[in-house]
């Protein structure tokens, strides 16, 4: 892979190593608060939740996005990457930062959950670790943008390959959105955790976090969408329906996933209702690129299905090569994306949100769409890349299919009951529920089902690691080089708007100022909105 194989492999193995630790933690958390287990001290529960959330929010998807980004960069631009040493430094920073944050959590010094909403306050080493990891990933952003620029200078007027175009969009999105959490840690939390400031402003901190909180989800999602556009049509034996539609979808994601984060703060009294409405409208716009993607991908799959002899309005679906891991994973991903997308539209509706706010419904929603629809595509990407990275064919294709099946079934078993008990009123982020209470007793059976689903996921995770390890250590064999799908009409030339980022980045900046300017600026003149921190698991009883 143009000399980048070791780099990509290191990112994927590091990601899956953290995954292998964090998945059993998740299953254990679900078990201990189900009726199948005695209550435990909440301290341990929140420690585990913080480790699970921190891994899956900041470490695992970042490493996958970076690793996949390097693979796309090398393959789609068709020449060796420059600045490999910078890439390794970036990798080291992410690993060091992650290790620092997770060690602090493991020591029980930062039970603040991955959202670490002030005034909750943990050890400064936790926040510093997150900051180091985020700053490490900024090097990757720089490398991706730089490679696109270099390639464009060397190939004036030619379309940037779709895979690389989308990767650069993801990098720019992450760069802009991670500034929110970066500023929150650097200017609000760390000064307080180090004792330099007497109080902390939770409202300001939450607004800054919301800056990151929604678009980070799209940063996680973009590798999966890239895989839909550039790997799936080929894996299914067909062509991409429209290259331009892909570019439009990615640009829309860049523009609209950022100025919408206040929909996470619908119940915050410090945000005016007008801004909540404004962000709701723009949140509605994010549905557009997802619908475009579903349309384009279904059209691409229909091409494959009909080429394989499928007939009639639905016959092409049955004709698709479902035994190929990539196609199977994509099918599952689409189902979960559809369900999760529907619950997302419910979440963004102000009135419906007040019903599901802070219930298990929300946990169900983001596990289904991220843990299900997105992460299963990370698996598919890993299975696709593995033979190219290791020079060894993928071991045990049957086990690969079993892994994808168990992951999907497990994730649905986990999340559908969560949605249900959420509607029944079960709050999220609780270490235990008193199921002897007649009002809660009926939820017990669903919570138990969901806990069992957690262990199906552990089984599936073990299969994944087993297959990847066995393939990596297996006998060398012939492997075909990685290629990206051809479009039905490959673009020879593209208008500037679909082949560049500059003006779109300016539009994102303008929208951010318009949608976040006042909600942030108001904290300058809102008096007495800062409060004492609430230290958790700290020796510092101030």
């Amino acid at each position: 892979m143009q000399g980048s194989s070791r780099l990509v492999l290191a990112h994927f193995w590091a990601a899956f190593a953290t995954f292998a630790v964090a998945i059993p933690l998740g299953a254990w958390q679900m078990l201990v608060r189900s009726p199948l287990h005695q209550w435990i001290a909440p301290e341990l529960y929140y420690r585990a939740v913080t480790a699970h959330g921190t891994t899956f929010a900041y470490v695992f998807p970042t490493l996958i996005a970076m690793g996949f980004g390097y693979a796309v960069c090398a393959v789609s631009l068709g020449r060796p990457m420059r600045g490999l040493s910078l890439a390794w430094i970036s990798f080291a920073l992410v690993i060091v930062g992650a290790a620092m944050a997770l060690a602090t959590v493991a020591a029980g010094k930062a039970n603040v959950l991955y959202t670490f909403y002030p005034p909750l306050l943990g050890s400064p080493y936790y926040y510093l670790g997150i900051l180091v990891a985020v700053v490490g990933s900024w090097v990757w952003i720089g490398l991706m943008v730089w490679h696109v620029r270099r390639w464009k200078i060397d190939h004036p007027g030619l379309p940037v390959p779709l895979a690389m175009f989308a990767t650069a969009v993801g990098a720019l999105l992450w760069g802009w959105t991670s500034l929110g959490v970066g500023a929150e840690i650097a200017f609000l939390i760390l000064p307080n955790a180090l004792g330099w400031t007497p109080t902390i402003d939770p409202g300001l901190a939450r607004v800054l976090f919301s800056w990151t909180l929604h678009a980070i989800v799209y940063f996680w999602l973009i590798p999966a969408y890239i895989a839909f556009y550039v790997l799936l049509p080929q894996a299914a034996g067909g062509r991409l329906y429209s290259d331009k539609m892909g570019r439009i979808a990615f640009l829309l994601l860049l523009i609209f996933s950022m100025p919408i984060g206040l929909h996470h703060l619908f119940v915050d009294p410090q945000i005016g209702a007008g801004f909540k409405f404004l962000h709701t409208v723009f949140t509605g716009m994010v549905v557009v690129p997802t619908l475009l993607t579903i349309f384009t991908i279904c059209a691409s799959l229909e091409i494959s299905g009909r080429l394989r002899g499928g007939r009639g309005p639905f016959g092409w679906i049955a004709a698709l090569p479902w035994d190929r891991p990539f196609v199977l994973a994509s099918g599952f991903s689409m189902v979960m994306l559809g369900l999760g997308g529907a619950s997302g539209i419910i979440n963004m509706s102000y009135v419906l949100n007040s019903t599901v706010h802070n219930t298990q419904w929300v946990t169900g929603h983001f596990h289904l769409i991220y843990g299900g629809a997105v992460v299963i595509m990370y698996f598919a990407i890993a299975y696709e890349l593995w033979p190219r990275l290791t020079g060894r064919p993928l071991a045990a294709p049957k086990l690969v299919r079993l892994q994808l099946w168990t992951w999907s079934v497990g994730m649905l078993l986990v999340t559908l009951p969560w949605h249900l008990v959420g509607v029944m009123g079960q709050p999220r982020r609780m270490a235990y529920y008193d199921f002897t209470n007649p009002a809660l007793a009926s939820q017990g059976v669903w919570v138990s089902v969901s806990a069992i689903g957690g262990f199906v996921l552990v089984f599936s995770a073990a299969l994944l690691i087993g297959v990847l390890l066995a393939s990596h250590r297996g006998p060398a064999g012939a492997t075909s080089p990685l290629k990206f799908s051809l479009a039905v009409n490959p673009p020879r030339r593209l208008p500037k708007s679909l082949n560049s980022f500059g003006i779109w980045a300016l539009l994102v900046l303008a929208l951010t100022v318009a949608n976040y300017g006042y909600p942030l600026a108001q904290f300058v003149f809102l008096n007495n909105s800062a409060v004492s921190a609430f230290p958790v698991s700290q020796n510092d009883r101030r």
Partner: protein
Amino acid sequence: MTDGKQPVPRDSRFAVWIGATMGLFVLALGVGFIWLPSAQRGADGLDLWATICRAVGLPNGNALVSAPVAGQPASQVAWTTETRRRLAQGDASAGAAIVQACNNCHGMVGISADAIIPNLAGQSAAAIYKQLDDYKSGKRDPAVMGVYVSPLSDKNLLDLAAHYALLPSPTGDTVSTQRSTSTVARRLIDVGAPLRGIAPCSSCHGPIGITPGAPGLGGQQRAYLELQMQSFKDGTRRNDISEQMRSVARQLTNEEIARLAAHYSSISDSGGR
């Protein structure tokens, strides 16, 4: 295709997309900041400016108007930025110079010899300061302590708080007979009793979390702890902000209070220093 010399034509998509985005923004502004707030209940008689202020989050057109508060607060101490700043200015050595009067009852090193008098060593400065101020303002029964705190200035109280916070905390009396009481107590401390609305002790007193001014309880005098919980329960002590302790203590049985006091007095302060 590969000569790269062809000029890139002007691209009207930029204007269309940016124009559409701006149009959406203006439409959302009109609906969210003018139409919806003027259609809401209670909007009658609001002019355009007041309507916009309402949507922005300034219902009075002025961020600095505070809501009227009825009744008397449980304490004069509020955990504002200013209180925090003053607490940080407490001078432990100045506190050591005025601590003699305290030593008679609270012990030379802040550990009392009498089970009814609290240990103060290693206690948080915020907790000590709040109690001293409450004695001074009469929010906590000043029958005994009032004589000692009334001549002290606010600066004296801050210095005393800083002094006691620096002393090494008691490790608790680990008599093995008291371990047997721990099952009921540990459950209340770790998970509370949700059906009775009792939050876990450790969510405010540590180690799960520490609310401002909540004292560390480990190693505290057993009889003192029991008496305070009973006083919160029967309402003779009322200086807990928002009735946090009274609403918990009212739900506790006498047996549970005794076990909690026994448990906390037998352990070191796991949540504090």
